Structure formats: structure tokens, C-alpha cells
């Protein structure tokens, strides 16, 4: 078995053209002395650092025939990452830069679907760079029917949002942008920066996809940011005490993902299952998820189920009511 420490962390860096990805990449590569980093880039930037291997990749999106209708993966990443991991000289960290127009879902799903990748690499975090001055215009851009607004998706998928170029806006404007970002994605932390100089501990080795980290989430903080904007992509937090009927829960989740899996970008949860001593933790991307029993509940602990969804057209009340119906009476 490989342990978390054996698996090489992979940071996915997304953001629109002009948000400063290349500057941030160069900053990471020059700051991280002593670490062997590989960069897989989809946009020809101007990266050239002696110790880093830079691989140019062409985005290849493959649909998977695994019965999951929205399951797409990045074929180029499977191939390149598989090849990198065969080398004797292992890398300490891998950075994947996506194009400004990329959908983050196939990138994330690649780490769930391919066993070879999964056994050797762990998706550490999705870091989205936004340009403080222009992101609002990108988020507001109305796309034709059926065309995704990639900037909204990139914000929605993020574990960490780096708000760059804050030197170009006033503090009030930056606050407004941050509020807007948090309305879409209340789970991500926002880091303000100028010239891409962000504290690297905030974006590298974050462990955002580790099930351990799910325990740290607090859906209550979501409420403050909800309903501030009338927009289709939002975060919904649910917190309910009690224990769940496993069969009902399975049916609920199965139906939910079948009906709304395409619209649910990210989800995390800590669940109390009836008859089980341990809390069950899970996290997922669209229809794919990882889950396992975790630490036991305390003897006198109030068992509270906590769930967070980030997605499109989420009906908070309907979600809460249908989830509550899985509780044992």
C-alpha cells in the first residue's frame, strides 16, 4: 500500500489568460529551492528554470465509458504523468497548468479514474488565479446557450483562489470581488496578492482532496455568503443532527448524482450512519467520489451531519429536505 506521504502531490493551476499564471509559476519555481518540480503546461508560457522539467501538453479530453455520463478525463495527463512517475528521479511536486479556457473537471477526474495515477499521485489542490481588476467582467459575461462560462467553473472548482493584481484596484473593489467569489465558492480560501507573490504554503501541499481535511470544514460559515447575488453557481451547506439510514442515504445520493451530477462540481461531507461508531467522510467531483469510515464519534458527542455542495442551480431547501428524509426517526 502507498501512504499519503509516498504519493507525489499535484497542484492544478487554473485561471484566465492574463491572470498571471506564468508569473506565479515562475515565482513558485524560483522560490522552491531544493524541490524537484515538474510542470505540465498547456499554454506556451515563458518558463525556463534549470531544475524543473517542463512538458508541453495538448489538452486531450476523453470520455470514459464507465456509465457515468459526465465522466471525462485528460488523456494527455494520464500519459505524461504515467511517464514521469516511471523515472528513477522522482519529482517532489508536479504542477499542471491549464489553459484559460479549460474545464477543471476532467483534470480533477483524471485523479479519480486512472488506477496507475491514483496509486502514485495525489491531487493536492486546485488553485485558481483571478485578476482582481477583470474577473468580475469575466464572471458576468453572458455566454450563448450551452456554452459554459469557464471563469465561473474555475472559481467554483477551486480549493484556493489567488486574487492577483490587487495593486490595480482599491481595497473596496477587492472586497467586492472577494465577496463575489465567495458567493460562488464558499469553501475556497481567497488569498490577495500582487505580482503573483503568494505565500507558497497557502497553495502547495494543501491536501484539499484528502479525506482527513473534510473533517475541518464548517458549513455554517457558508450561510453568511449565500443569497447575495442572483447567480446560478453557488455553494450550499447543510448541517443536520441525527443518524442516517444507510439504504435511504445510498438511494438519495444515487438519485441526486444521476439527476444533478453534471451540475454538482464539488461536494464534501461528514456523515453519521445509524449503527456505525465511526463518522463517514466523503468528497467528490461531479459523479465521482471517494469515501471511507473515519475517526469514531465520541460517546457523548452530538452527531452532526455536515455537507457542502458547490454547483449550478442548487436548490438549498430541496436538498436539505431530501437529505433530512434519510435520517432514521
Amino acid at each position, binding site marked *: 500500500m502507498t501512504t499519503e506521504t509516498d504519493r507525489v502531490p499535484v497542484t492544478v493551476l487554473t485561471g484566465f489568460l492574463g491572470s498571471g499564471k506564468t508569473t506565479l509559476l515562475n515565482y513558485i519555481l524560483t522560490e522552491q529551492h531544493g524541490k524537484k518540480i515538474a510542470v505540465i503546461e498547456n499554454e506556451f508560457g515563458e518558463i525556463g528554470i534549470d531544475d524543473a522539467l517542463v512538458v508541453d501538453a495538448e489538452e*486531450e479530453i*476523453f*470520455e470514459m*465509458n*464507465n456509465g457515468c455520463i459526465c465522466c471525462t478525463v485528460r*488523456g494527455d495527463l494520464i500519459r505524461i504523468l504515467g511517464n514521469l512517475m*516511471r*523515472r*528513477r528521479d522522482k519529482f517532489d511536486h508536479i504542477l499542471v497548468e491549464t489553459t484559460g479556457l479549460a474545464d477543471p473537471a476532467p483534470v480533477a477526474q483524471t485523479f479519480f479514474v486512472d488506477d496507475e495515477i491514483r496509486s502514485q499521485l495525489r491531487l493536492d489542490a486546485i488553485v485558481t488565479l483571478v485578476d482582481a481588476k477583470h474577473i468580475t467582467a469575466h464572471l458576468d459575461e453572458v455566454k450563448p446557450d450551452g456554452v459554459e462560462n469557464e471563469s465561473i467553473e474555475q472559481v467554483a472548482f477551486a480549493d484556493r483562489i489567488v486574487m492577483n493584481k490587487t495593486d490595480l484596484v482599491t481595497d473596496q473593489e477587492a472586497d467586492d470581488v472577494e465577496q463575489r467569489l465567495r458567493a460562488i465558492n464558499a469553501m475556497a480560501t481567497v488569498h490577495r496578492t500582487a505580482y503573483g507573490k503568494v505565500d507558497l504554503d497557502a497553495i502547495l501541499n494543501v491536501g484539499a482532496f484528502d479525506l482527513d481535511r473534510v473533517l475541518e470544514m464548517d458549513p455554517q460559515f457558508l450561510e453568511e455568503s449565500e443569497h447575495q447575488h442572483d447567480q446560478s453557481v453557488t455553494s450550499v451547506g447543510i448541517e443536520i443532527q441525527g443518524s442516517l439510514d444507510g439504504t435511504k442515504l445510498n438511494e438519495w445520493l444515487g438519485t441526486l448524482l444521476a439527476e444533478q451530477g453534471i451540475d454538482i462540481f464539488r461536494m464534501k461531507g461528514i456523515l453519521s450512519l445509524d449503527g456505525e461508531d465511526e463518522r463517514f467522510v466523503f468528497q467528490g467531483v461531479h459523479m465521482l467520489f471517494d469515501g471511507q469510515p473515519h475517526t469514531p464519534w465520541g460517546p457523548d458527542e452530538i452527531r452532526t451531519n455536515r455537507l457542502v455542495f458547490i454547483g449550478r442551480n442548487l436548490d438549498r431547501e430541496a436538498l436539505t429536505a431530501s437529505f433530512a428524509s434519510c435520517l432514521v426517526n
Partner: protein
Amino acid sequence: MSTTTRTQDLLDQRWEVTLDDFITVTDIIGSGDHVLAGSLSGRAEILDAKTGETIAPLDGHAMGVLSGAWSPDGTSVATAGHDARLRLYRAADLAPTASVALDGWGTTLAWSPDAALVAVGAGRTVTVVEPDGTEVARWSDLPSTITAVAWSIDGMSVGAACYGGLRWMRPSQPDRPPKHLAWKGSLLSIDVAPDGRWVAAGCQDASTHIWRLWSGEDLQMAGYPAKIEHLAWDPSSRYLAIGSVGDVTIWDFSGKGPQGSTPTTLDGHTRHVSALAYNHDGSRLVSGDADGNLFVWAPPKRTSPTGQIHLDSGVAAVSWSADGSSLIVGTEHGSVLALGITRT
């Protein structure tokens, strides 16, 4: 009551050398005296099959050798790699004959059965050249990066595995659009049955897809635990071996074919099968896994191995000598070793 003594294969290691990193290529020349070996260190060498001594270091490929093979007639050798180059050598004196620029990593290459042409897949391009490097055809902008190439047995067509199915192209008619054997999914490996009737492709979505050439009739073996990267037809074209996680399955294509039948399962591997090859007469199959287990089988009748050995590193590549008396094995840690096989 009678007892039968069943043949066992005794495997003994004859030599071991290192090429520093994950071995990507081991190929024995037909006459059995020379071995081509290459690794991700970038080194490619011709070794003496009896001693393992280096006969000639080849130029290799910066950042790693990814593919390589002797021509079927033994007169040429080809290697390709990360440096986006195909290198060709004359076997007689191992003098370089050509270095051809490719459109990406030289991931896969295959010689035509008559040794007149070599096809290499690099990025989304398939390039076909003569042994002296003369370019015969180049097909760019195929639907995805090419994962494997193979020739039809008449040497008229080269097939490329990629996303969405196989694409078959004729070097004699480079302007003709590729023939598409469609399958929704990403194909990772390709093997043409020696009799030319079938072509099998391993898929990312844990299945194997098989087409009858050239009717387009196809069938699917699904339900494997992981993606299929290694498959092999036996020399009679009756059996198809498929390597998965933990086991190898053998499908029988005689009579009505494998549809509705149950395959023979060869159990014993502890991780994913990373190398698979039949010997010259089909009496033995070798399979290796990422844990370093190497098994020799006599399928389909016997489902327990006739021989086995455990290496201290994962098996990365394996090939049989022409007479089936030895194996050349490459490991993840960069060893190339020769195993003699004695039937007892």
C-alpha cells in the same frame, strides 16, 4: 492410480546489467545473439545475448528511450524517444543510417513484416520511413496522441491506436483518408493476430475491443479491474491473452469465437500485469507484474505456472529468444537480465 510428472520450467539468471532507469525496450534479434535494450535514462545499447556485455552503445534519446525494435529480417534496428527523434542503424556494423525528426515523443514504433518500412507514432502523427530514413508518408492531426502502432500482416497498412478507435493508413496511398475502426474510448495497445484475421486493442476503460479485419465486425471484453495495456495473440492466432490486475485471461477464438465463452484465468499476479509475450511456438506465455513477479505458463490447459521467479523490482519489459530457450527481462529499476529456461 497413476501419477503424471508435469513439466516444469527452471528459470536461471545468466547475467544482469544496468541501464540506470526504467527499461522501456528489450528486443532480441532473430538470430538470438544480440539484444536491443533502452531505458528512460536515455541510454540505448546493443548487448551480447550470451554475456550481457555491451557490443555497441547507440546514441540513445535525451530524457528517455520510449520504443525500439530490430527489423524482422535482422538487418536494421530502430529506436525513438523523448527527444522527438527516430534513429536507425544498420545491424551489420551498427552504423547510424538516419535520424528522423518527429512531431513529439516517439512513443511507439513497429517494423513492417517485410522489414521495408518502420512506422512510428509521435504525438498525433504517424510517420513511415524506409530503413535509410527516407520518408514515405506522414499523417498528422490524428484525433489524439498515438499510443500504439502495428502493421497488417500483408504490410500494406499501418494501424494506430488512439482515442475513438483505430485508424488504418496505407503508406502507398498517403493522401487517402485513414480507415476508421471506431470505438468510443481511449485505446492504449494494439496487437494484430498473426493470421491477420483479428486486431485487438486494450482500452483505458478496462476493456479490450476486437475487430475482424476488414469486415468491421467487432466484439468487446469488458469488466476488467483496470485499464488494459498488455495483450498478446499466440502464434496460431487461436488464443488472445489479456493482462489485467492480478491475472491474465486467455480467450479462445476457435470455432464460433469467444462470444459467450468463459476465458481461462491464470492467477498469481499481485499487481497490474506490466509485460506479456508468447514464445515462438505458443507453448509458453510469459507475464510479469509491477511487483517483480515473473511467471511462465503453458496455457490454456495448465492454469498454474510452469516456472516463476521474483525480481527485486517491477517487470517493465520482456521478450523471448527466437527458440524460446531464454528471456530478456527489463525492470523498473533499470536492470536488464537474461533468464535461461530449462524444461525438467
